[in-house]
């Protein structure tokens, strides 16, 4: 479904990704793992078009998307939930959600999506009128994901949903994401929280210093010595 071939990318002169290739299949829950600062976020930014790769190609559903502007990539059905949420803090929850469905003109569809989202996140339904800026960290995360869903995406890129969340909430968020894959949304998750993540995803890639160092199903990765050593602290 999504395929990155030998991507190099970065900001100006600062190269971040080197020769990254990965593949996400439809309906799967895939994680991109690795410590902070290795380029996971950059990878997502490159897929979503915010960063243009200096080399390599990105394919989505048989269409080359590298080099397209962000809006067009969004319209193809890729929804990117950033780590800071990119919320419109001066707007209400409801308005934020409606912005999520900006590209969908069919009002009935928007309504359905809203219902679906409120079902997933009942908390948001209670706080429809609240300003996004005045919500707590967990609620903001939910809103960001909910907004990402409003687009009716085929693929969701989710960046560190665990960031700044209490462990209990992290679980909730992960479960929600898992549920999404059951209703047909493919999810590419970026996480540094290796243990938790590997328990829930189908497969994963490990990024180190801008390059993919390991890949495999979650089972394989959990048993991988290198990962055990570096990330799980099991020597």
């Amino acid at each position, binding site marked *: 479904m999504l395929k990155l071939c030998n991507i190099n990318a970065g900001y100006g*002169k*600062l*190269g971040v990704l080197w020769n990254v290739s990965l593949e996400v299949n439809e309906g799967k829950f895939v994680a991109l793992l690795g410590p902070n*600062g290795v380029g996971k976020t950059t990878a997502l930014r490159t897929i979503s078009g915010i960063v243009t790769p200096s080399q390599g190609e990105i394919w989505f559903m048989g269409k080359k998307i590298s080099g397209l502007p962000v809006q067009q990539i969004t319209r193809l059905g890729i929804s990117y939930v950033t780590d800071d949420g990119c919320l419109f803090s001066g707007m209400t929850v409801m308005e934020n959600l409606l912005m999520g469905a900006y590209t969908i003109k069919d009002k009935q569809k928007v309504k359905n999506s809203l219902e679906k989202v409120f079902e997933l996140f009942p908390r948001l339904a209670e706080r429809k009128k609240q300003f996004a800026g005045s919500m707590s960290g967990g609620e903001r995360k939910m809103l960001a994901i909910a907004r990402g869903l409003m687009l009716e995406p085929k693929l969701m890129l989710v960046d560190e949903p665990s960031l700044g969340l209490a462990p209990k909430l*992290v679980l909730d968020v992960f479960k929600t994401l898992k549920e999404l894959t059951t209703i047909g949304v493919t999810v590419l998750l970026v996480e*540094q929280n290796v243990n938790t*993540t590997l328990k829930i995803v189908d497969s994963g890639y490990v990024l180190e210093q801008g390059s993919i160092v390991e890949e495999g199903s979650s089972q394989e990765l959990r048993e991988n010595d290198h990962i055990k050593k570096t990330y799980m*602290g099991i020597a």
Partner: protein
Amino acid sequence: MLLKTEGVEKRFGGLVAVKDVSITVNKGEIFGLIGPNGAGKTTFLNCISGFYKPEKGKITFKEQEITGLSPTQLCHKGIARTFQIVRSFPKLSALDNVKVAVVYGGKQHKNPEKHAKELMDFVGFNAAKDVLADNLNTMQLKRLELARALATNSELLLLDEVAAGLTPSELPDFIDLIRRIRDSGVTIICIEHVMKFIMGVCDRIAVLNFGAKIAEGAVEEILNNPEVMKAYLGEENVH
């Protein structure tokens, strides 16, 4: 003891970014500060380097209270820092970048240019010295920033993720450089994510999570601390 913080707290609106953090850094050591993203490490560093004024707590440097002093004053007292995203003066030449710090760093030099050049050689800055900083690559900029920080005659160097963005092959060189800086008599506090780097250079580390310090001690000790594991790697039991 070179630097000591006692119960430092920093808030942004309702959010407590740093909560009651106390650490002690001894002269001549490399002190690591780790923790997951958003744990408040950079905020804490900003409190020490004077960019933020903490709401509560006290920071002492060489037995002197320095809480709330401006970065400029702190620089003159001997605290220098680098930034997470490398900051240079893009339209000045590399040499001038360092010269600014030599001239204004608080100590008079007879020949600032010469001193700056020596420092650039020391950190292994390999490009031509009269190139505009705008034209340098990350590695060169990082070395330049280090030279600039050293140029202020600092006794304490605060490094914010210096190793981020380096390729694995560049890392050993860099670790070596940090060690050499320490050996020249500069105490270092560094925030880092790259574990190899932490394990390679740090004498002691402290771990922050949700703005609070959850552990402090020698490297081995910390890495096996269950509390830290949980913070970093998440809850063990997921169903």
